[in-house]
Every structure is written in C-alpha cells, then in structure tokens.
C-alpha cells in the first residue's frame, strides 16, 4: 500500500465538481483507492462514498492505493487534483 496526506483547498471542499473530478481520477487506476477523513475511510471510486464524507475546505485527508499500479496511482491522482486546484 502507498499513501499520501493532502490538504483540500477548493473552497467547496470535496463536494460537487471537485469530488467528481477526484472520483474520475481514482476510477482510472487499477489499484483499490481509498480516501479517509476523520477516521472514516471510503472507496475513492464511489461518488456517493466520497460525498458522504462531507470533506470541507482546508481538511486534511489520506489517499491510499493498493495494487500493482499503486505508486503511479497516487502520483496520477495527486497530479489531477493539483491541476484542478483541489489540493495544494
């Protein structure tokens, strides 16, 4: 497993379009990808899962990937979220 802690800077948090962008990025990976916030962890490929976490702006969340492409998965997800100004 590979993991990274990121800070959400999008003003609406990980809701709405930012959440959908995150799910889209995660969905492209072969690895299982999870996102954890305040002790709850959900499948990052699930829109309703990610939205149910209610992640606000400035929150720190942990993204983890497990699988053959875990290394690249984390890097790719970070890159997309950063390009979309969702994380720092």
């Amino acid at each position, binding site marked *: 497993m590979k993991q990274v802690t990121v800070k959400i800077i999008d003003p609406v948090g990980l*809701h*709405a*379009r930012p*959440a*959908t962008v995150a*799910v*889209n990025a995660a*969905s492209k990976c072969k690895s299982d990808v999870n996102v954890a916030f305040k002790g709850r962890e959900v499948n990052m490929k*699930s*829109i*309703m899962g990610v*939205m149910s976490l209610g992640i606000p702006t400035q929150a720190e969340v942990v993204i983890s990937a497990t699988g053959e492409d875990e290394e690249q998965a984390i890097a790719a997800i970070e890159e997309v979220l950063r390009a979309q100004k969702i994380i720092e």
Partner: protein
Amino acid sequence: AIAQGLALSKTTTISIVMSEKLLAYNTKILNGLMDVAKIYNYNIMFHTTSKGISKMQDVIESIIKSRVDGVILFNDNFTEDEMEVLHEYQIPMVVVGARFEGKKDENVGNVYVDFERLAYDLVRDLIEQGVDDITLMEDRLNLSMMKQLKKGIEKAFEDAGKNFEGYISYGDGYKSSYAFFKDYFKDHKPAKFNMAFRDSQAIAVMNAAAEAGFHSPEDLQIVSVLDSKYLNMVRPRISSYNIPEYDMGAISMRLLTKMLVSDRDQDENRNIEISYTPIPRDTTKEELFY
C-alpha cells in the same frame, strides 16, 4: 445502418428528460448528471418537452422505441399516467428535484430536497418571532415544488393555531411579477415576509417595493428558495438557500448506475434526501437565520 446500430448497442444509454422552460434553472443539475455519465462512459440521449412542439407522450414513445437502459426525469414533467407507461416497460428511472409522490417500486429512485420541511421550519421560526404576515408567490414552472412549500407553510400555521391565506398567483416570469407588484403596491403594503421559489420573482417584489418606497429588510423580508449568483448582484442582496444542485445531479446518475447493475430484490435505499442550508444576505433580519 445496421453497423451503426451495432456500434451503438455496446454502450449503456441513458435518457435525460426535462421541460424546456426549466432548462435555464437546471444547468447545474445537468452538469452533475453529465460528469458522472462521462465517468461511466454512458451515452446520453437528451429530450426536452416543449409546448406546441413535443409532448411528454412523444418523448416516452421515443424512449421506449430506442430501448434506453435507464431514464433520469426532472420532476414537474409528467403525470401519473405517463409514469405508469414507463413503469410497465420496467425501465429503471430516477426522479430528480422535489419528492416524488406517485407510486414507487424497485425501478424508481428519487433524489430530492424536502421543500415541505424547508417551508415548515422557516415559517415556524417566523411565527415564533411574531411574523405571520407571509406571502408565498406561485411559480407556475415548478408546481410540484409549490405544492410542497404551501403544505409546509400551512402545517406551520396550523400548528400555531392560525390559518395561511397568503398564497398569491399571477403570471410567470419577471415581467408579470414586476407588473403585478407595481400595481399592487399602489394601494397595498407588502407582506412582512415574502417567499419566492426563483430569483426573478424575488427580485421583482424587491424592485417594485423599493420603487413604492418600501425597503428590505425593514418593511419586507424576502427569501428566494433557489439560490443564484444574481441574488448576490442585486442591491440589497437577497437571502436564499444553498441546495447542492450539482451534487443532486451527480448522485442521481450514480443511483441510476447502481439500479442498472443491482439485483431487483436488493433492499437498497433508492430515496436520497439532499440537505439545504440558509444563506442569509441583506433581505432577511438578523434573528431569522442565526
């Protein structure tokens, strides 16, 4: 033509059905639907109903003929009979907008805002603060929503031992609302509290009142249930509710996806309530949304 058909058949196809008149008010929901559809590589067939050009019956016929895999319906588009036809063909569908009050089965999902509770809670607070001079402006484009708002207000009045008589009905659109209130304020005072469903109605009552010498929030409080960026651009800025519309669209399409793959008898939740939060701006008094 056959090759073309075969190519098409590989992909899941979803029909989105909405009334043309509501399109301008539902672009965020549509964006949420489209983004999630794209993630699942769905093809989207888009249908609008439009008076004098295409009726809901034609749209239903075209949906059944083209055998789409699922349907997203915006509320206020269809009658119970029309829903019945879609039911018979067992097409999974999600109704988005207000709470769907027709017959439900495992083929029907609903992603909704509880407008009745929103209106009830607001009016209960107002009555507690001594305000019972309340107007609800009819919005003919959204009659399901109106019905639910009215029900919530009536219940709050009833619980306070009062009777609600402030439902007003005139034409639709800003021009007719504005003309109505310009005339009305010649020999009437505005209600202490004015509730509209859409931005243009709220702006209409504010402009007409201001031009008749009444100012918000002192003389009249104003709330638009649906938020829009324009409420922040007018002066004074009009209070409203934050309803996560993009999320409603995204969740609706995701729910439909689940319905397409899941076992019919699985007891999953197909009714998802979306939360709302007030956005106090300049047209409501400080004590209302504390």
